[in-house]
């Protein structure tokens, strides 16, 4: 028998969350990019890592990224509820309580860093901890709601995984992982601004100062083009610095040229159905761009190790 509640108190309601809701809190699609780039960082790093240790490192990076996603959804539940793109997430949909998401995210964040430190190495674990801190406190809690440069600076959080993968093997950071960091860092603005051109009304309704909301669509198109022009040579930089071969350089050059061409189309097409179509194409290709570049980097490195490098 249950004791009657004191006046003013309500009984805790049973959770409606399914396992799939907790998986959704981990942002699995974002996690796939994080795991892939971390895997490339781990495999191209000089030295040997036992497959079990490598798997453990990737698992911890994936869980740490998922924890960041859960904490982001906990903090942003209010704005997620007014944007069509995020309306059906577990918290605004009412299936997961905010406190449940907070506990879930915090537990995974602390757990992933501790397990990473104990089983792999503490330098890489510290980088993972900093990445989670940067995404949750610097990007989510501070930048996202206060400046149109939110995704430029906040993009650093998404750029760290290959560096963490590298550090899991070597225990330090050198020029090569910094170049991988820069590729993702300069890729993030044109990628997200292409999306924000399509979802401008959503961001305005939620009060998020994304660049198109604050500075207008034309300024955003100009910034997309500028960042794409900067991204293309940075994409080729691993070859220029002797970290990757000509095969990678050729792929990066071609992908960079396509990225600039699509960004130019976004810049030119400013009205009618051609404008959103151009933004959609750039957004779709930008996803392909980062996957292709990192896959090429990995293939180039593996071929070089086998003695077939160009």
């Amino acid at each position, binding site marked *: 028998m249950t004791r009657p509640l004191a006046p003013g108190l309500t009984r805790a309601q*049973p*959770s409606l*969350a399914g396992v799939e809701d907790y998986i959704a809190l981990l942002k699995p699609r974002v996690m796939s990019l994080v795991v892939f780039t971390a895997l490339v960082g781990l495999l191209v790093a000089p030295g040997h890592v*036992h497959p*079990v*240790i490598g798997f453990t490192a990737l*698992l911890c990076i994936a869980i740490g990224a998922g924890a960041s996603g859960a904490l982001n959804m906990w903090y942003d539940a209010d704005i997620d509820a007014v944007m069509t793109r995020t309306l059906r997430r577990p918290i605004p949909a009412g299936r997961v309580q905010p406190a449940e998401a907070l506990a879930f995210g915090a537990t995974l964040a602390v757990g992933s860093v501790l397990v990473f430190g104990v*089983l792999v190495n503490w330098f890489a674990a510290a980088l993972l901890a900093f990445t989670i801190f940067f995404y949750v406190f610097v990007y989510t809690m501070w930048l996202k709601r206060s400046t149109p440069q939110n995704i430029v600076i906040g993009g650093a959080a998404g750029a760290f995984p290959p560096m963490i993968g590298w550090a899991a093997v070597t225990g330090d950071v050198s020029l090569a992982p910094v170049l991988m960091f820069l590729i993702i860092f300069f890729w993030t603005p044109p990628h997200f601004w292409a999306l924000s051109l399509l979802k401008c009304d959503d961001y305005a309704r939620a009060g998020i100062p994304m660049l198109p909301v604050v500075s207008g669509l034309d300024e955003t198109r100009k910034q997309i083009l500028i960042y794409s022009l900067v991204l293309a040579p940075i994409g080729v930089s691993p070859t220029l610095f002797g970290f990757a071969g000509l095969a990678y350089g050729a792929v990066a050059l071609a992908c960079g040229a396509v990225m600039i061409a699509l960004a130019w189309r976004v810049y030119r097409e400013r009205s009618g159905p051609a404008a959103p179509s151009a933004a959609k194409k750039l957004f779709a290709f930008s996803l392909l761009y980062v996957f292709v570049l990192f896959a090429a980097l990995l293939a180039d490195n593996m071929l070089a190790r086998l003695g077939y490098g160009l």
Partner: protein
Amino acid sequence: MSENPEEGIVLTAEQKRRRRARSIAIALSLGLLVVLFYVVTLVKGPAVLIRPL
């Protein structure tokens, strides 16, 4: 779901199913963590197995 002060909260069949699924997921995650520590201990340091008692 009905709430009766005499009986407490009575879960619906769907809520029971979801609670069971969550419990299984937690158990599997903890099991994986135990296996992970066991395997990594073997990989990283067999010396830990031949220490003096």
